[in-house]
């Protein structure tokens, strides 16, 4: 216990790590706030620069950027009605009307406090449940990992983007990208076309930078000249009465955020929307109607998306399955540093786990400090024209792609993925599942083959193994339920249920 606490406090007493976390949080707030710069983009570019650093340094910086970035999106959502990140879409619905009424400062203040509150709930859940889950996960077999990964890709496919087929296509494409290179078991080439370049595989960080950095930059070119709206900022520190009044809403939202964050593949974006929806339904008599500046509508999504950060680390550190796109990228960073996220991570490198917990908590404290200060400078920086920003992002992406293995070919990959990702985005595909696929693909492949070899290549035994082991059976049911809910059959069942409920209500 004492040992864990010691690990927890590593970054609290080391001035260098303290500085890195603070710098990361501050940078994250700005990155998250600037529309067009996403946290995933920032983290994937950062990873390529920090892989020569020690693990602690790299993780301190990344944790800061992650926490700051998830929050930062709310700033522009409130001040400019442009959500800086997808997780702040719900925030704009009530935050901007508040700003228009001249309560911008109050909205920013309340958002900051509730984000930090949500953040701590998520971290507490991480500290409490991850060790338990890791113990439990030691019982997991390769079958279960295969199913978990498939559930993750399916979840991100169902909940994001405009159609299920597009989500699954993106996930499968990612799996394929992750598969290129020599097969780790037999050293046979897969999709290498007998070229040496492809034998080493496609570095996933390059794929991430291409899909999230370059592709996003090309998409942003469509909205180069959005006018910025200036707001008057008054009081920033929220009233204590307000904090007390919205405590219940924040608590509920944090719970939703933590759970959604912990589900493999779903992160802050979905958590924020669900929490907003929940708050809308749970608040019977809001002071101001939702959509016109209700504080509940501001508190719920912000508490939820920051709670989702802690939640997303749970499956990542205990199962090696990322909770969202950013943790998928962070898993890439851990691999680069020679670590293997999974149930053994807590047994073999407990310091890393507690260090991460302590670090996320520290980042939240810095969030409170930076969130309540420097708002006037902030509005100036966010107004930086995209015409300058986008070429800079492209240069950063190029440097990032090159830095991983000093190979110019990687920069060509970056552009290729960037252009391809642009078309995918334009036609309504999400690139999140691609990245999840790249990380999970090789893991699914090896686990599938291990399970199949374990069943002596007999399909009947293979299937029977899934049905006869309780954990696998539960996961299989969850997977099938999720799959069926997306087919026309599931849709029909949902509509029938809704119809019956409406009828019941009408009768009552």
């Amino acid at each position: 216990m004492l040992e864990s606490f010691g690990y927890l406090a590593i970054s609290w007493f080391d001035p260098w790590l303290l500085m890195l976390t603070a710098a990361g949080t501050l940078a994250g707030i700005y990155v998250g706030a600037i529309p067009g710069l996403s946290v995933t983009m920032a983290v994937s570019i950062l990873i390529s620069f920090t892989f020569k650093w020690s693990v602690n340094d790299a993780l301190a910086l990344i944790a800061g950027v992650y926490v700051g970035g998830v929050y930062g999106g709310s700033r522009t959502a409130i001040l400019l009605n442009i959500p800086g990140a997808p997780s702040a879409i719900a925030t704009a619905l009530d935050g901007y009307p508040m700003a228009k009424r001249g309560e911008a400062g109050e909205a920013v203040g309340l958002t900051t406090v509730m984000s930090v509150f949500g953040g701590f709930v998520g971290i507490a859940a991480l500290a409490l449940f991850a060790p338990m889950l890791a113990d439990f996960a030691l019982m997991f077999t390769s079958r279960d990992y295969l199913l978990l990964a498939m559930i993750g890709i399916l979840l991100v496919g169902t909940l994001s983007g405009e159609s299920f087929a597009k989500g699954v296509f993106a996930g499968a494409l990612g799996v394929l990208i992750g598969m290129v290179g020599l097969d780790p078991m037999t050293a046979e080439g897969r999709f290498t076309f007998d070229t040496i370049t492809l034998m080493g595989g496609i570095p996933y960080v390059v794929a991430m930078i291409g899909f999230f950095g370059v592709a996003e930059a090309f998409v942003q070119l469509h909205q180069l000249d959005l006018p910025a709206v200036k707001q008057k900022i008054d009081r920033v520190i929220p009233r204590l009465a307000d904090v007390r009044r919205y405590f219940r809403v924040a608590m509920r939202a944090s719970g939703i955020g933590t759970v959604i964050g912990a589900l493999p593949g779903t992160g802050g974006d979905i958590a924020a929307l669900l929490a907003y929806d929940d708050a809308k339904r749970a608040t019977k008599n809001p002071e101001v109607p939702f959509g016109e500046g209700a504080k509940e509508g501001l508190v719920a999504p912000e508490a939820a998306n920051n709670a989702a950060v802690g939640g997303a680390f749970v499956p990542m550190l205990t199962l090696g399955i990322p909770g969202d796109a950013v943790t998928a990228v962070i898993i890439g960073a851990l691999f680069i540093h020679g670590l293997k996220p999974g149930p053994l991570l807590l047994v073999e490198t407990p310091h890393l786990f507690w260090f991460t917990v302590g670090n996320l908590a520290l980042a939240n404290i810095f969030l409170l400090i930076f969130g309540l200060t420097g708002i006037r400078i902030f509005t100036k920086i966010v107004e930086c024209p995209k015409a300058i920003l986008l070429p800079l992002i492209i240069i950063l992406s190029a440097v990032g792609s090159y830095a991983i293995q000093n190979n110019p070919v990687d920069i060509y990959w970056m552009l290729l993925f960037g252009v391809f990702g642009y078309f995918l985005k334009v036609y309504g595909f999400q690139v999140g599942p691609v990245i999840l696929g790249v990380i999970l693909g090789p893991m699914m492949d090896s686990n599938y083959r291990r399970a199949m070899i374990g069943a002596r290549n007999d399909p009947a035994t293979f299937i029977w193994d899934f049905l006869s082991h309780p954990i696998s059976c539960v996961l299989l049911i969850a997977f099938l339920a999720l799959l069926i809910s997306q087919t026309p059959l599931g849709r029909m069942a949902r509509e029938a249920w809704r119809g019956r409920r409406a009828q019941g209500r009408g009768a009552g």
Partner: protein
Amino acid sequence: MSSRAQRRPGELAFAVALLALSLWLFSEAYKISGFSGLSTPGIFPMLATGLMVVCSLVILLKALAMTPAGGGLRRFLADITPLRQTVMVVLVGLYILAMPYLGFLAASGVFLFVSIQFLWRRSPWLTALVSLAGLAAIHVVFSLVFQVVLPKGTLLQGLF
């Protein structure tokens, strides 16, 4: 959806291209080890590409069911690949091709100047100042803070 959605320009062609890509990748996956066993290196690639084929078929059928975008190639050029995007892709292409010859700093400087001038359309002096400042910031951050090795050019003998 009750009403038929409008197809985006080029969406049908993109769906066809995705299907073609998926089919080709599936055939490549088949070549790895065919159906010779259930735990061979080729099984999972075949599953993934097979899934891609099925999904792209669904995507294509859905695109076919939508109302056509109309406007043909002209709308595609205007909405999906406008001049701004096309020029930027070409510029990035030239930039990364020139980098091994010019070196990182020189190539990035030229790229920044040309692309900012193209997108921002202010006085060239202001653009030059902004690109220089951006370049200096990148250089300081990467060479000093992150200590990243940046490509040196062959043409200028590593001067930049």
